[in-house]
């Protein structure tokens, strides 16, 4: 078998999200329909049009050494926690560090640290600006810290493609192993940018839900009452490994990373192509790359951010990509519970998609009370749904401002 045909599998999962501080708690929440979205306390939010978000269920500083926490931006803290969980879940593989890679994505990076240091600059002068400012704000900081933590030397990378970043990390990790650069890659995505300025900025785009009186019900993909996305924070991690390497050490295998379909809309800086053509093409490429057909697909973890335009455009794209096979495909929108983790979303939702395949359970789409008739899909809501046995494929869609489309295909093993 040549390196270009190497099969790549997932052997470890990690997550810290608004729904739970680890994979088990997050998964239990997604299956039971538990929202992690809450009101934001603090007078800095009082005058904003949006006063709620999905903050992580477990404060990262309670899990890290104090000297460790203080040199890490919050998005880096979350990435480190999720990656440590994934690495332990994979059985802490032992290998030549030059064969171990890290790809951790973020959409925005350490913006909160930058803002804090800017306040220090203005109030106390340049001499009190932290020497850790640059490592804390640089977008590759999370990947770099995770790489140091694991001692990885095959290469460390940070794809940045807004809300598709986390999925792009999985795709990049897949390529690193297929091309022969690495045998094992820790892939992930992270974000922690809940702050008045980011809320104000997304609110200025009219992209956020303003359902302040019912935060837990604000993220409602596919519902006729949806009015925008809900900001969230968190991180997801996956240990990708060549099948050969995983089998040789007797690792537990969750799924094969069968393929990644990546396209660009070429339409608008922030709005999705209303026809969803780029998204359709990404899903078709993912199926082609996996050597599969729509008939093999049992479940899609949709991008489904709860925006009026985006959900319908994606629904149309899913229908177009899967054609007549759409009747036996369940679709879940887990952002209904986590909120939108931006650069972390694609990684956390990859974890959810893989667990749906592994456990044969499609998680809930919370808050779906009145299905938008333009959707035309079998959206799992009310309670989780059992998926059929046998060889199967699941897809995870992630799209980002800028027109980025990533569809990942995971296959049962």
């Amino acid at each position: 078998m040549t390196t270009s045909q190497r099969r790549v599998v997932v052997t470890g999962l990690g997550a810290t999200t608004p729904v739970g501080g680890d994979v088990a708690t997050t998964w239990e929440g997604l299956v039971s329909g538990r929202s992690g979205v809450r009101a934001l306390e603090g007078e800095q939010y009082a005058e904003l049009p949006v006063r709620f978000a999905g903050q992580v269920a477990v404060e990262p500083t309670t899990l890290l050494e104090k000297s460790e926490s203080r040199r890490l931006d919050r998005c880096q803290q979350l990435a480190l926690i999720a990656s440590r969980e994934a690495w332990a879940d994979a059985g802490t593989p032992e290998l030549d560090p030059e064969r171990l890679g890290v790809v951790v994505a973020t959409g925005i990076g350490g913006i909160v640290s930058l803002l804090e240091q800017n306040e220090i600059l203005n109030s106390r002068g340049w001499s009190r600006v932290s020497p850790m400012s640059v490592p804390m704000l640089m977008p590759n900081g999370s990947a770099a810290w995770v790489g140091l933590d694991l001692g990885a030397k095959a290469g460390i990378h940070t794809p940045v493609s807004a809300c598709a970043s986390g999925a792009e990390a999985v795709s990049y990790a897949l390529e690193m192993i297929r091309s022969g650069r690495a045998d094992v890659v820790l892939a992930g995505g992270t974000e922690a940018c809940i702050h008045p300025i980011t809320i104000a900025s997304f609110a200025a785009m009219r992209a956020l839900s303003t359902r302040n009186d019912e935060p837990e019900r604000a993220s409602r993909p596919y519902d006729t009452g949806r009015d925008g996305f809900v900001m969230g924070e968190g991180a997801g991690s996956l240990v990708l490994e060549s099948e050969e390497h995983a089998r040789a050490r007797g690792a537990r295998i969750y799924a094969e990373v069968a393929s990644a379909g990546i396209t660009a809309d070429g339409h608008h800086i922030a709005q999705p192509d209303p026809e969803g053509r780029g998204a359709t093409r990404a899903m078709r490429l993912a199926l082609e790359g996996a050597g599969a057909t729509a008939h093999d697909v049992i479940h899609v973890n949709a991008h489904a951010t709860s925006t009026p335009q985006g959900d319908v455009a994606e629904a149309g794209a899913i229908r177009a990509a899967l054609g007549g096979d759409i009747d036996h495909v369940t679709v879940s929108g887990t952002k209904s519970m986590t909120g939108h983790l931006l650069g972390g979303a694609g990684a956390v939702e990859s974890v959810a998609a893989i667990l749906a395949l592994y456990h044969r359970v499609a998680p809930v789409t919370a808050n779906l009370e009145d299905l938008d008739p333009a959707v035309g899909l079998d959206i799992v809501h009310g309670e989780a749904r059992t998926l059929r046995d046998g060889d199967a494929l699941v897809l995870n869609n992630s799209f980002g401002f800028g027109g980025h489309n990533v569809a990942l295909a995971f296959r049962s093993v």
Partner: protein
Amino acid sequence: MSQEILDGLAAIVNEVAGTPVADITPDKAFIDDLDVDSLSMVEVVMACEDKFGVSIPDSEVKNLKTVGDAVAYIEKAQA
């Protein structure tokens, strides 16, 4: 040597680098013995300036190899 300054400095190094307070004795070198890297050293210096009300210019920092060097410098600067 001022025990008060030594204790204060040990608390700072512990906070910045996570080094156990008991290990932070006058003979120890910041970089070689105490897990303080060049960035952490900047943080230690900033915290010392705030805590002890002294100024430690960059030109002096390179002479402060050990905890004892730093305590002596701070004592002199406070005098």
